[in-house]
C-alpha cells in the first residue's frame, strides 16, 4: 500500500512540473458571461510589454547570421534586427536554433521570428506569416577585376568554380546552355576555397550567392567584381507566426522607416559594399 502511494505521489509530482502558466497569446473573451471568444492579436503588445524580441537563427550562415572570432553572433540580419529593436524600445534576444526545428521553435513561442536569410517559398508562405522580400539573393558570377569578362558568354571555354551541393550548383544545372559552354566546373567544399582558386587564377569565375560574394569582397578587400547578370534569383523574408500580424506589420513598418532615412543603406553598405535591399 505504501509503495503504491509512493509511486502515485511521484507521478503526480512529475506531472505537476509540466503544467506551467497558460500562455494566452491571442485569445481573449469579450466580457464575463459571454459565450464566444474574440480573437485579439496581442503579439505586438506582448513584445512591447516584455521588452524582449526573440530572433531565431542558424548561427552558421555568414554574412547574415554567424559567429565571429569572439564567438558572438553577428551578421547583416542581426544588425537590421538590432536597429528595429532599438526603435521599438525592446531588447533583441538572439536565440540560436537547430535550423531543421525552426517551425517548431516558432510555433511553440520559443522564438518570435525567423530572421536568417530565409528564402521565401510557397510552402513557407503557407506555414508562417512571411514579410515581403527585404533582400534579393541571386546566384552571380564573381571575377577578378581587370579581366575582360563582363557577361556570362565571355566565360565560354573557361573554367569556373562553385560550392558543391549549393544552390549555385542547382542554378548551373538549370542553365543548360551556359554550363555546356564552359570548359570545366570545379567544385569545392566551401565558397572560401573556391574564391581562393579564383585569386590563384586557376579559374576565371566563381558562381555563388550574391550576398556571400559581396560580403567576401567587402570584408577581405579583394579585387573582385560581381557580374550584373545572374543565373537564378530568390528573395529573403522574415518569418513570423501566422497569428502575429500586428507584430510582423510593425517590424516591417520599422524597416520601411529605416529604409527611408538611410539606415538600411548604411548597414547594407557595411556588409556588402552597396545597398542591395528591397525594402520600400
Amino acid at each position, binding site marked *: 500500500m505504501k509503495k503504491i502511494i509512493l509511486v502515485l505521489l511521484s507521478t503526480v509530482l512529475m506531472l505537476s512540473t509540466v503544467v506551467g502558466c497558460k500562455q494566452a497569446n491571442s485569445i481573449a473573451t469579450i466580457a464575463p458571461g459571454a459565450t464566444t471568444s474574440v480573437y485579439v492579436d496581442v503579439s505586438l503588445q506582448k513584445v512591447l510589454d516584455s521588452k524582449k524580441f526573440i530572433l531565431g537563427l542558424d548561427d552558421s550562415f555568414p554574412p547574415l547570421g554567424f559567429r565571429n572570432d569572439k*564567438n558572438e553572433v553577428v551578421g547583416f540580419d542581426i544588425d537590421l534586427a538590432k536597429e528595429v529593436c532599438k526603435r521599438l524600445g525592446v531588447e533583441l534576444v538572439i*536565440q540560436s536554433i537547430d535550423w531543421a526545428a525552426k517551425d517548431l521553435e516558432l510555433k511553440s513561442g520559443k522564438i518570435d521570428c525567423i530572421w536568417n536569410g530565409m528564402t521565401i517559398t510557397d510552402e513557407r508562405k503557407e506555414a508562417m506569416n512571411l514579410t515581403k522580400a527585404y533582400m534579393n539573393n541571386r546566384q552571380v558570377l564573381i571575377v577578378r577585376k581587370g579581366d575582360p569578362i563582363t557577361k556570362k558568354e565571355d566565360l565560354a571555354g573557361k573554367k569556373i568554380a562553385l560550392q558543391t551541393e549549393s544552390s549555385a550548383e542547382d542554378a548551373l544545372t538549370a542553365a543548360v546552355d551556359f554550363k555546356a559552354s564552359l570548359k570545366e566546373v570545379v567544385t569545392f567544399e566551401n565558397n572560401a576555397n573556391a574564391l581562393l582558386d579564383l585569386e590563384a587564377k586557376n579559374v576565371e569565375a566563381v558562381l555563388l550567392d550574391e550576398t556571400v560574394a559581396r560580403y567576401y569582397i567587402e570584408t577581405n578587400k579583394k579585387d573582385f567584381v560581381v557580374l550584373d547578370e545572374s543565373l537564378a534569383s530568390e528573395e529573403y523574408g522574415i518569418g513570423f507566426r501566422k497569428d502575429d500580424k500586428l507584430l510582423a506589420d510593425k517590424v516591417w513598418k520599422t524597416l520601411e522607416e529605416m529604409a527611408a532615412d538611410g539606415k538600411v543603406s548604411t548597414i547594407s553598405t557595411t556588409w556588402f559594399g552597396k545597398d542591395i535591399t528591397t525594402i520600400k
Partner: protein
Amino acid sequence: MNINDVIKLLLESSVSTVQLFILTLIFAVPLGFLVAKGRMSKYKIVSVPVDIYMLIMRGTPLMLQLLVVFYLPSIGFGMKGFDRIPAAVVAFSINYAAYFGEIFRGGIESIPVGQYEAGKVLGFSKTQTFFKLIFPQVIKRVIPASANETITLVKDTALAYVIAVPELFSQAKKLNSTHSSLTPLLIAGIFYFIMNWVVAKAFSVTEKKLSYYR
C-alpha cells in the same frame, strides 16, 4: 581563432554536457528504482501503466522525446512549458528511468527467495529486509549494466542539440564547419573519452569496494 580558443570553447561546452549528465542521473536513478518497483507490483493498476510507459520510452527515439517534451506543452496545450535545459533533463530522465528500471528489476528479481526468508527469520520488517539485505546485493548485480547505461548517457547528451541546448558535440560541429578543420571534432572526441573513462573508473572502483566476499 587559434587552437587555444577552440579548446576553451569546447571546455565550456563540456561543462554544459557534464551538468546535463549529472542532473539526469540525479533524477533518473531514483525514478528508475520506482519504475522497477512499479513494474514488479502485484497490483495491475500499477504494473500495467508502468509497463506501457516503459514500452513508449524505450520504443521511441530519444530525440523525438526531446522534441515532444520541449515543444508539445506550448504547441499542443498553450502552456509555457519548460526552458531548454530543464526540458532536456526531463526528457533524458524519464527515458533513462525506463532503462534503469529494467536493470534494477533484473537485479532485484535475481535475489533468491531465501534472502527474504532469512529476513523474516531475523525479524526484519519489509523495509528493513529490503534496505539491509536485498539492496546491497542488488547494487553489486546492477553495476555492470548501470555503467553501460551511464556511459551511453554521456554520449546521448549530444542529442540535446535538437532543442538548441549548448553542449559539446554541436559546438564541435559548428567549429568544424567554420574553420573547415577536423581538429575540433577530434578534440571533442578526446573530451568524451576522458569523461567516459572517469565514469567507467568510478563504477569499477565501486564494484571492487563492494566485492567484500571475494
